[in-house]
């Protein structure tokens, strides 16, 4: 089985050779081992070509061995789990893994769109903007779809993600990002001091470059030291190591976003397991030990399969025991790149040449070439030969002007290392240039963060360990943990000398951004066309966009721009760094909150009873409210609602109104308090009485309405509308705590304490007499309109009974403790059976309140005053109240304000629609003739046609006027009569029974 893996070394590597795994790439069966990534398994199987590039469809191979990979993006999995643009370098191999290359048709080897490459002179930066400008209407229908087919990356599945994601919080003293030498040293120091530590590692293995670069720490081989350090950390109860977890953002107040890929390394998560988890980590201190990213050199042909980062070559050989090729050439401008030659030699790979761009190659490097018996060229790579099967030869332009060609199937390149400054810059930090390493390092961090190791430009192993240890100890001390048990681990400080090299000129394309196919000449074009600022360069060329966010290309691109524009690199500067540092699935941000769990829902105590009766529910804020109760044979909602309305008007019905906000207002100043929040008086309300109240916002606009009852001298029971329960409670608390702290008032929400039903209709009292204890007197004399009291119910229950009406009918509201709400609904059905009791929903409730001309949410819409609603007479002149002064402003008392009126279409068969605009007859349509609009509509079985309420300029003076209802949204225009908003029993005789 393993014989297939022709590029796998016989021994070594951090792979489990006892666990072979099968997988397919573009349908071809291959094998690898546990511990492989998809990329390392492809390397082991000798696969060079893994994808086609974004714009030119150029053949591409694997460039890196880490999360910065721009090229090796695949479609992973199939069906609903199909996942585009998955980096092969971070995809852990699992048995049965199925990967497809992207952006090619019909096949990876033969891609018809590769013709784009021949047309490349026109596919330059800004190409789309320049070419597809005209005719404009072609863009949406023709150009864009065509471009999207030709360019672009992978395909999404197009169906809902079957996996689950969740979100969690974590808290610690010290968050350490990255578990390379600096991160491990920091964790040992901080953990040893007793601090609560979270160490995150993007990879499944801790150790970072220690797993790839060899070397010794405290005289132990580096990878073994990493393993021992992990063991030590795991033994500390105050330390938590989370692998497969990338910190992607730094937010306010020491909060960090991280993505844990819990089950990305298995085909399908086990039942009840989540795929990924989004962490919000709250940390007092953070140590950024995210290491550095090796950068490519921009030379002709640098994107041909087989050209690979030098550090990646080491990773494939050391960590995965997979050799990228048999004949290796190395192109470097720094000492670190030479490590690859050492690694390759140890693995028995033939080195055909090392091309060092520096004028003076250090002696120890020269010695290595001599001992290793390979050619050393001082100069640059001028081009490569080869194609989709990989490179075959490397062309060298030597410093002395001579040229040479060497044979190689792999070209390792190293342009130096860029510290991972992204997270340090998430609060708009701008990194500073450090000439010794020819790279940017952080310059100031978000509060609480320090940077250690390579991320801070300390590139040697010894320096990483020392700075990590120091950062860990000092962060622990900041959190009150003084005594560190550890001393800094020791290692040598190997040389990391570099002479910057950004761009080697030549005829072939030289790529800066591999993922977005941005070449050095695109950067030059941007400069010529005036896009010199790095932010403009990024937008114009798309350099640094897409899934890799330019981790391999940004610095090189701006360095080339600096050369072209005659500025220094620090003058040119970097683009702004923003989260996310690594790609995060939207599903992870949503977590549990999808489908029926999109938001929390609130259910009333009799919800399940209503469900049993087949109620149709409507979302009212978070509540599920019964909208109507269809009966078998009813053909639509209107039929059900009309039946419910008539049943109430002619008999008796009940409606669940438990969703209304309810607030206990207590204390000896409760009455005074309510006088100040309502426009009308409440301190004068007698115990055992209810009153309708209206409250204004501070600006004089109506906030909410409802009835408030006085249950005792120092206890009022205030109700709000369903929608405004929360805001009203907030407003009242503000009044209590901030405006009048001297008042003795206590507020408590008791919305959920009570189950409340409105019982309405001429037979209401008959029904109540069935269920209320016979000793209770419900007559008008003993229980008048707006009376409130506690009553005994049959069967040993007590209830609060309120004689209030929203429907215009004889009505009571009855409340019992919520635990008996379900029983009450069932008992009301029993008690009302002789009278044909009908449960009704919010639609029928709405019909009846419109018929009665009662205002509700659509009229209390944040623009209306008490006067607009016809309630200005309620405004007390004897007291002050919130909103009084502002309500007197000129514009709020202007005679031409839009006020509440009723509407009736002249055509009795016409359906009135809310939202229609009111235009005078014969007037042109426009904003200046728009006199108002329809707010609420219903079909009124009483009136026998559609009716509505609305707001109309000087409406009260215009009763009987015929106007147009103009509805451009539905393309309707019809005549309506402005009328009194009360369509039903205007004298109110029925509700007073």
């Amino acid at each position, binding site marked *: 089985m393993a014989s297939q893996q022709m590029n796998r070394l016989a021994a070594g590597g951090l792979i489990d050779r006892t666990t072979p795994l099968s997988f397919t790439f573009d349908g071809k069966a291959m094998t690898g081992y546990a511990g492989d990534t998809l990329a390392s398994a492809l390397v082991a199987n000798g696969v060079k070509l893994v994808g086609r590039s974004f714009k030119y469809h150029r053949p591409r191979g694997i460039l890196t061995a880490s999360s910065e990979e721009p090229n090796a993006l695949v479609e992973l999995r199939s069906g609903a789990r199909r996942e585009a643009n998955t980096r092969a370098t971070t995809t852990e191999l699992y048995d049965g893994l199925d990967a497809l290359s992207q952006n090619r048709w019909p096949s990876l080897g033969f891609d018809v769109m590769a013709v784009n490459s021949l047309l490349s002179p026109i596919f330059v930066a800004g190409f789309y903007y320049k070419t597809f400008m005209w005719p404009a209407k072609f863009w949406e229908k023709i150009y864009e779809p065509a471009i999207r087919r030709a360019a672009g990356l992978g395909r999404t599945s197009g169906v809902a993600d079957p996996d689950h994601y969740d979100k969690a919080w974590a808290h610690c003293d010290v968050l350490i990002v990255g578990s390379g030498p600096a991160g491990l040293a920091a964790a040992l120091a901080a953990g040893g001091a007793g601090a*609560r530590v979270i160490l995150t590692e993007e990879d499944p293995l801790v150790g970072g470059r220690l797993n790839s670069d060899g070397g010794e720490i405290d005289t132990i081989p580096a990878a073994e030291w990493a393993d021992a350090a992990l063991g030590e950390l795991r033994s500390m109860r105050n330390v938590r190591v989370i692998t497969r977890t990338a910190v992607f953002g730094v937010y306010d107040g020491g909060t960090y976003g991280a993505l844990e890929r819990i089950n990305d390394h298995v085909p399908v998560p086990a039942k009840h397991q989540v795929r990924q988890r989004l962490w919000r980590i709250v940390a007092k201190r953070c140590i950024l030990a995210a290491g550095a990213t090796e950068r490519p050199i921009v030379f002709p042909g640098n994107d041909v399969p087989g050209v690979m980062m030098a550090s990646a070559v080491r990773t494939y050989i050391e960590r995965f025991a997979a050799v990228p090729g048999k004949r290796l050439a190395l192109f470097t401008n720094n000492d670190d790149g030479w490590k690859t030659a050492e690694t390759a030699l140890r693995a028995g790979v033939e080195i055909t040449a090392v091309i060092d761009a520096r004028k003076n190659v250090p002696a120890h490097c020269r010695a290595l070439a001599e001992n290793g018996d390979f050619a050393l060229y001082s100069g640059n790579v001028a081009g490569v030969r080869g194609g989709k099967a990989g490179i075959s030869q490397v062309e060298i332009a030597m410093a002395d002007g001579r040229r040479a060609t060497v044979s190689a199937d792999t070209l390792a390149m190293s342009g130096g290392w860029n510290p991972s400054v992204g997270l340090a810059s998430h609060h708009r930090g701008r990194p500073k240039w450090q000439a010794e390493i020819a790279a940017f390092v952080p310059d100031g961090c978000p509060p609480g963060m320090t940077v250690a190791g390579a991320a801070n430009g300390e590139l040697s192993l010894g320096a990483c360990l020392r700075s990590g240890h120091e950062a860990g100890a000092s962060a622990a001390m900041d959190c009150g943990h003084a005594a560190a048990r550890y001393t800094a681990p020791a290692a040598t400080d190997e040389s990391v000398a570099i002479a910057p090299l950004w761009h080697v000129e030549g005829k072939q394309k030289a790529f800066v951004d591999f993922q977005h196919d941005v070449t050095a000449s695109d950067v030059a074009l941007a400069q010529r066309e005036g896009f010199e600022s790095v932010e403009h360069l990024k937008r114009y060329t798309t350099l640094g966009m897409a899934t890799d966010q330019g981790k391999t290309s940004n610095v090189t691109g701006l360095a080339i721009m600096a050369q072209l524009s005659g500025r220094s690199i620090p003058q040119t500067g970097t683009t702004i760094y923003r989260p996310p540092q690594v790609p995060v699935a939207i599903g992870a941000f949503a977590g549990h909150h999808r489908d029926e769990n999109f938001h929390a829902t*609130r259910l009333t105590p009799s919800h399940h009873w209503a469900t049993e009766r087949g109620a149709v529910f409507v979302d009212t804020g978070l509540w599920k409210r019964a909208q109507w109760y269809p009966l078998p044979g009813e053909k639509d909602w209107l039929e059900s609602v009309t039946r419910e309305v008539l049943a109430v008007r002619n008999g008796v019905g009940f409606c669940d109104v438990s969703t209304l906000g309810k607030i206990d207002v207590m204390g000896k100043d409760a009455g005074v308090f309510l006088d100040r929040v309502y426009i009308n008086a409440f301190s004068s309300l007698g115990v055992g009485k209810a009153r309708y109240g209206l409250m204004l916002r501070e600006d004089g606009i109506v906030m909410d309405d409802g009835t408030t009852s006085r249950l005792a001298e120092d206890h009022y029971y205030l109700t709000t509308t369903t929608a405004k329960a929360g805001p009203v409670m907030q407003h009242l608390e503000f009044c209590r705590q901030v405006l009048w702290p001297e008042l003795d008032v206590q507020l408590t929400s008791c919305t*959920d304490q009570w189950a409340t039903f409105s019982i309405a209709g001429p037979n209401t009292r008959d029904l109540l007499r069935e*269920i209320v204890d016979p000793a209770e007197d419900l007559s008008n004399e003993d229980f008048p309109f707006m009376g409130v009291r506690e009553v005994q119910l049959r069967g040993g229950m007590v209830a609060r009974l309120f004689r209030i009406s929203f429907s215009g009918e004889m009505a009571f509201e009855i409340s019992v403790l919520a635990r008996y709400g379900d029983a009450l609904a069932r008992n009301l059905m029993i008690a009302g059976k002789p009278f044909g009791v009908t449960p009704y929903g919010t639609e029928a409730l709405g019909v009846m309140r419109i018929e009665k001309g009662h205002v509700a949410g659509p009229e209390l819409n944040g623009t209306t005053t008490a006067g607009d609603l016809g309630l200005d007479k309620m405004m007390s002149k004897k007291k002050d109240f919130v909103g009084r002064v502002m309500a007197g402003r000129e514009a709020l008392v202007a005679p031409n304000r839009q006020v509440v009126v009723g509407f009736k279409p002249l055509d009795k068969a016409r359906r009135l629609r809310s939202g229609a605009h009111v235009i005078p007859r014969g007037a042109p349509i426009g904003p200046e003739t728009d006199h108002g609009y329809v707010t609420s509509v219903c079909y009124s079985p009483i009136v026998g046609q559609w009716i509505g309420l609305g707001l109309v300029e000087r409406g009260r003076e215009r009763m009987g006027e015929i106007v147009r209802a103009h509805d451009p949204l539905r393309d309707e225009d019809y005549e309506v009569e402005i009328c009194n908003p009360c369509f039903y029993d205007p004298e109110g005789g029925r509700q007073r029974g």
Partner: protein
Amino acid sequence: MVDFVWNVRSPLQQAVVPGRAGAIVAFSGVKLAEIRDFDLVQIFARRGQREATAKAVKKHYGVEAPAPRQAVFGKGATLIWSGPDQVMALSARKPGTFRPLDAMRESFESIASLSDQSDGRCLIRMSGPQVRSMMAKLTSVDLHDSVFPVGAAATTSIDHAAVNLWRSENSEDGSPVFNVLVFSSFADSIWHTIVDAAAEYGIEIETRPAASS
């Protein structure tokens, strides 16, 4: 004349199914219990009556009133701090009774306002070796021993709904025990959120009367 029967129904009656749920594991990582039949009264000191209320609490319940962000456990009741000048008193309900304020009025007359919340909240108790991992998905509160020891309380939110959260004595298996009072109307929804969060650890679900918990 019909006889009316007044059956009690918990807001969680449908949602809570006693037994095992979630992942099938040898030992459930999370134990969830709906605690039923409790009385819950909000005690809210009148203006200027903070000390008097604390004294009245001590006299009535025999324990010191809880300090901010604390819960105390008296013989007959658990007292949970729920905001400035506010305490929730949680006790087992005597079967068939529904007027918990009656027995308290005398003690708190003109000192504190009382609001019966026995039906306004559901009480969910969570424990088990993985309870903290599960709670990390529900609350932003740091539940580490050093921050949230036994007797700690918080007024916070789960799934954007307000809750009172406190920690009581560790369970027999040594795992921490967290209690949350959730608004009754949210209970069904929050229960499903909790079960979702706990599913991967394996869940043991029960209901139990407050008197035997």
